[in-house]
């Protein structure tokens, strides 16, 4: 099998049976501190692989598109071949790790709302934090892609968080990677294991790679324990989360917008004299039964043109909450 | 809010404490709006019976026999308090509600009228209210597809904090298709349909039975939101249900929601009802039973269906895609029983719930007397300027800004559009009916009894001027807080006035509404609306008669003034525009001269002698004549030196608002016959002048061009609204 990519702890191999598939192999290596710390633990690859299988399956069941196809062996999974988008998406519920170092926030501080951060996937630059606008200016991804990825991250945050809550475990933070399939759809990629998320028990004890980072315990035993707990939770008891998309419809500039003109005059009559122009549009807030997927976005694109807006006189844009 | 006295009474009759659900029901059904507890006792003064009256006051709509196999249906209501808070939705749902009243009788709804009152438009808030009320009525009525055929618009400071929105719906029905609002047979099913139930307007009627305080914003939850699309679907569905004779009884969900609808059906039928609140299709899943019973969500109907018809009814409801629920049945126990998943939440005797409130004491204080004094009166220095000011003043100017937003032609029965003395609809049997509505609140403020009777006369003259014979009245009585003797006194005097009119002229009152508590606390003081008894009168034309309009149609025709003119300028527009206020004894109600003038016009029309005709009312002869010329190609030349009556100056003659007068355009050749008729009926007449080809209004002492007049007239409202 051809090696496509050698990562720090995983390898990506070409599937000999299909050009559209790859095999992801989980090694027993663990790294931390940007590769500074490195060790090998027997069984680590298998448990990370098991958990990825379990969690991808769980998320797929909730409607999230992932690259996962099936498990091949103890430490290998079969996945769709994707072009990885070079942006890591991190979601934080509680301050920990690099967030604390960056801003001096006390570890364990609960954030008022989940926080999404983007990091550039680039070893040479040590995966720096990067803003949305910079990503767009550097043409690494489009705004709608980032909105979509953010929406999936919040979805994963909810579904994973609710599952863990059943077992009194707290999802502190996690990192996701996304890839683009041949057809151009974006799917969740990489792995889902305690390598890529932080979980604490009710006494804030780490049940993830922090036990390695901070030499707090037996890594493989911890991973197996958290997986055991996770498997006791009932996925069917996690209620679907309503996700929302907005479609904003505006009159094209150059086309008369009488409601806007009348509104402008009314504003002036009420004393709001600095207004130059007013255009009145529409906002459709669409609540979905399942997480937003590329398929849904494609369908919406058709509806936008067929029904929600009249392309002769209106523009539209999609905003994901 | 339920009073202590009422609470005590309920406890005594029930022999126990009412439950939460029951309290909510009583609060709503014993509110002034639903129970008429302050006003009902005076309705005996009205003439309510007549040969043509098939169904009088009491159910959803009054039904009047117009001959040739058809009944006209009418309902009139107010939606004042909601419109003050949320003018768009308040007005829209007002229209929605009145349509429901008419269709619940089995009628097809074919015409709408709306009578609006606001503070002066110079205050932006009033302009905002007018704009949105009109938009609400327009969007709702136009969407459902019912034309507006009449209305009125008046402005006064007293309406600043209490705007008035009174609506009328006119329908027609064949006698055999009438559906009654009663549940007669125990065992029949209660089926509700039309729309889901949410939290709209919870306790809206109890809200309408209170005055406004400074916490207006909080009242927003009590306003309902209309859905004309659902309404149109209900209308189409009802048509099918009625055609197949599937309904045993029908009531609409209006003020008081389900409690009122089911309660009144049972009361009328002498039966009881048992309702499973959990079978009601809900819009908001977590509603409590107490809320469901009093919700005022719009576009809902309640039908009584015999068991053998149930399946077919359900099939039709599903075919039309309208939400529905089989929510209960008619019983024989005389109670209103409400259950929630089998648990009894309320059980009230219908007799207690619908009519069993203790009659509250009300005190009527005497309305302060006015004087005859005309000390304020002055001839204008510049007659032309004065007339232009009058023409452009808000109570006289052109209202086409408003009514051009209403669809007047949908259903293609409209024979006369808005902008004339009355709107006219053609009924399927070929008969034409005219509709008009008037109320001069200034006359009513100064003398509620005379003012009311005279307002009714103005309506009457509007119909007679077109050639119609008045056949029925509907009214909406808008007054202040009945717990205050001054307000109550105004109300009772007004009812006396309308009662007198209905009996003097032998026209039955077949429908109506009372809206009290139209006052507000403003800076610690009570501000009350002018007494506003809105009177709608309908008239019928002889077969084959073409309604006569008020636009001058021929040059060199005579303009006749029928009736005497006295110096009655107290309470007139002239007084209001030149001095800024009204005071004094307003024009008197004189039934005999009024009848004489009416008979003259009626006979003259019968003989085809009158080419155009207008009634003389607000603004006097000057305004009445200008309105005849403004939308015509002609002008006129007058000699105002001598006219019958004791008015003795030009301004007095031009602007007196004495009742019982008409202007008629009669061609030279028809003059002798016309004068004979006048003499026969003992009325007064004089030839004011001639119509001219030149578009100039020449009053002798002064003149103005029609162009100048049109400019001012058409700008009166627009200047505030564009």
């Amino acid at each position: 099998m051809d090696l496509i990519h050698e990562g720090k702890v995983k390898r990506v191999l070409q599937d000999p049976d299909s050009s559209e598939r790859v095999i992801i192999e989980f090694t027993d290596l663990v790294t931390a501190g940007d590769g500074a710390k490195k060790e090998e633990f027997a069984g680590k690859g298998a448990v990370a692989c098991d958990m990825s299988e379990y969690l991808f399956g769980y998320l797929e069941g909730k409607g999230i598109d992932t690259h996962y196809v099936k498990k091949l062996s103890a430490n290998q999974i079969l996945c769709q071949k994707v072009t990885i988008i070079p942006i890591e998406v991190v979601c934080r519920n509680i301050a920990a790790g690099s967030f604390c170092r960056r801003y001096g926030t006390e570890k364990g501080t609960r954030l008022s709302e989940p926080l999404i951060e983007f990091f550039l996937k680039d070893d040479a630059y040590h995966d720096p934090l990067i803003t949305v606008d910079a990503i767009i200016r550097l043409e690494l991804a489009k705004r709608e892609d980032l909105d979509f990825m953010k929406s999936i991250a919040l979805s994963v945050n909810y579904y994973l968080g609710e599952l863990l809550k059943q077992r009194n475990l707290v999802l502190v933070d996690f990192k996701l990677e996304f890839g683009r399939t041949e057809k151009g759809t974006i799917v969740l990629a990489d792995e889902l294991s305690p390598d890529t998320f932080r979980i604490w028990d009710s006494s804030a004890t780490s049940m993830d790679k922090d036990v390695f980072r901070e030499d707090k315990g037996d890594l493989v035993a911890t991973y197996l324990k958290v997986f055991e707990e996770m498997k006791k939770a009932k996925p069917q008891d996690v209620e679907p989360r309503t996700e929302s998309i907005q479609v904003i419809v505006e009159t094209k500039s150059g086309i008369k917008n009488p409601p806007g003109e009348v509104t402008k005059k009314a504003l002036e009559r009420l004393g709001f004299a600095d207004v130059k122009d007013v255009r009145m549009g529409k906002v459709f807030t669409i609540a979905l039964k399942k997480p937003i997927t590329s398929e849904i976005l494609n369908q919406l694109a058709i509806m936008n043109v067929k029904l929600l807006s009249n392309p002769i006189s209106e523009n539209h844009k999609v905003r994901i909450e | 809010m339920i009073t202590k006295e009422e609470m005590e009474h309920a406890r005594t009759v029930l022999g126990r404490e009412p439950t939460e659900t029951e309290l909510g029901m009583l609060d709503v059904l014993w509110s002034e709006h639903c129970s008429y507890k302050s006003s009902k006792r005076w309705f005996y003064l009205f003439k309510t019976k007549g040969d043509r009256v098939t169904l009088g006051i009491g159910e959803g709509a009054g039904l009047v026999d117009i001959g040739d196999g058809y009944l006209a249906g009418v309902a009139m209501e107010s939606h004042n308090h909601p419109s003050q808070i949320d003018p768009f939705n308040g007005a829209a749902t007002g229209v929605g509600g009145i349509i429901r009243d008419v269709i619940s009788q089995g009628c097809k709804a074919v015409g709408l009228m709306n009578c609006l009152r606001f503070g002066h438009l110079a205050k932006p808030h009033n302009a905002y209210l007018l704009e949105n009320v009109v938009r609400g009525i327009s969007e709702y009525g136009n969407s459902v597809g019912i034309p507006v055929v009449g209305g009125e618009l008046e402005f006064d400071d007293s309406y600043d904090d209490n705007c008035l929105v009174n609506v009328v719906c006119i329908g027609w029905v064949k006698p055999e298709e009438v559906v009654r609002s009663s549940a007669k047979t125990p065992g029949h099913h209660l089926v509700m349909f039309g729309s889901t139930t949410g939290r709209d307007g919870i306790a809206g009627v109890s809200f309408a039975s209170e005055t406004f305080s400074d916490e207006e914003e909080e009242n927003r939850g009590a306003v309902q939101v209309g859905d004309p699309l659902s309404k149109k679907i209900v209308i189409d569905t009802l048509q099918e249900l009625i055609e197949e004779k599937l309904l045993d009884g029908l009531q609409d969900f209006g003020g008081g929601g389900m409690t009122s609808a089911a309660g009144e059906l049972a009361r009328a039928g002498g039966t009881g009802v048992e309702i499973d609140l959990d079978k009601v299709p809900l819009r908001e899943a977590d509603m409590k039973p107490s809320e469901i019973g009093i919700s005022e969500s719009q576009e809902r109907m309640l039908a009584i269906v015999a068991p053998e018809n149930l399946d077919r009814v359900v099939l039709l409801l599903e075919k039309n895609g309208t939400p529905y629920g089989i929510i209960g049945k008619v019983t024989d126990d005389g109670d209103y029983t409400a259950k929630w998943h089998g648990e009894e939440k309320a059980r009230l005797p219908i007799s207690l719930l619908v009519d069993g409130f203790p009659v509250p004491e009300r005190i009527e204080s005497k309305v302060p007397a006015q004087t005859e004094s005309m000390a304020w009166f002055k001839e204008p220095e510049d007659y032309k300027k004065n007339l232009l000011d009058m023409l452009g003043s808000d109570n006289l100017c052109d209202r086409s800004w408003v009514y051009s937003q209403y669809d007047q032609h949908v259903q293609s029965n409209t024979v006369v559009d808005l902008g004339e003395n009355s709107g006219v609809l053609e009924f399927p049997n070929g008969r034409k009916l005219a509709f008009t509505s008037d109320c001069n609140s200034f006359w009513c403020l100064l003398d509620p009894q005379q003012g009311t009777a005279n307002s009714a006369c103005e309506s009457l003259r509007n119909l007679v001027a077109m050639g119609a014979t008045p056949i029925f009245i509907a009214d909406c009585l808008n007054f202040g807080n009945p717990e205050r003797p001054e307000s109550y006194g105004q109300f009772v005097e007004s009812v006396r006035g309308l009662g007198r009119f209905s009996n003097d002229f032998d026209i039955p009152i077949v429908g109506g509404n009372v809206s009290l508590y139209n006052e507000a606390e403003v800076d610690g003081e009570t501000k009350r609306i002018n007494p506003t008894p809105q009177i709608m009168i309908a008239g019928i034309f002889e077969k084959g008669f073409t309604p006569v309009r008020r636009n001058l149609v021929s040059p060199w025709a005579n303009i006749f003034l029928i009736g005497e003119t006295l110096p009655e300028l107290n309470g007139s527009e002239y007084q209001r525009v030149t001095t800024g206020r009204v005071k004094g004894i307003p024009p008197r109600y004189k039934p005999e001269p009024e009848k004489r003038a009416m008979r003259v016009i009626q006979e003259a029309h019968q003989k085809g002698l009158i080419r155009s005709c207008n009634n003389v009312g607000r603004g006097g002869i000057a305004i009445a004549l200008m309105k005849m010329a403004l939308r015509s190609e002609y002008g006129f030349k007058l000699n105002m030196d001598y006219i019958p009556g004791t008015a003795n100056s030009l301004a007095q003659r031009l602007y007196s608002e004495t009742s019982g007068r008409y202007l008629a355009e009669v061609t030279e050749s028809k003059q002798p016959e016309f004068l004979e008729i006048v003499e026969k009926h003992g009325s007064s007449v004089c030839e004011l002048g001639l119509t001219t080809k030149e578009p100039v209004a020449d009053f002798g002492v002064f003149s103005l061009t029609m162009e100048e007049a049109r400019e001012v007239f058409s700008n009166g409202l627009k200047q505030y609204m564009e």
Partner: protein
Amino acid sequence: MTIAVLRFPGTNNENDVLRALSLIDGADPVLVPSRKGLAGLEEADAIVIPGGFSYGDYLRAGAVASVETITEGVRNLAEDGKPIIGICNGFQILTEMGLLPGVLLPNKSARFICKWIYLKVCDNTTMFTEGMEGRVIRVPIAHAEGNYYCSDDERESLKDELRIPFKYCNEAGDLDDAFNPNGSIDNIAGIINQKGNVLGMMPHPDRAYRPILGSSDGLAILENFVRAIK
């Protein structure tokens, strides 16, 4: 000669159209509720889409109606050259379907307007205006979105191909902005498709078919429509 008169939820002029058509010899108007789908149009030789507020105009006038399955049947009949008239909301539905070019935007006053207006009939002969060439007719309008707009190319095509049968004017037939009640480009009140068998117009010939209503000028248009049905 079956004329299908469509009714969508919220259509409210179906009776006006049925009554007007029933006065014309040879016309056999039938009310077809839209929920009947394609089956409702099986027998149709012509179609009228009446005015009203289909689906409440809630999304955009005519938008939701234009994607109902029955409109596929309308499209088929249009392609077969059968006569089709869309009045007011019907015109809006035809443009949303793309059977006629352009779009009807909100009136320039941003308000509903109901009034009697005059239309100048074009000088060239069309299926619907035969015998009326160059005349001035009086009909009422009642709409909030009658402001016709189309791209510059379409505008040129409509002009060059003589596809504008009705324009707003005054009693004398003068075309001017002052007589344009809603801001439509070129005072356009109605247009036809390239084949000439589909007419969309904002004014209501179905409300001007008896003198007692104010005008019977609309009847001639409907008579031409009926005559064109084969």
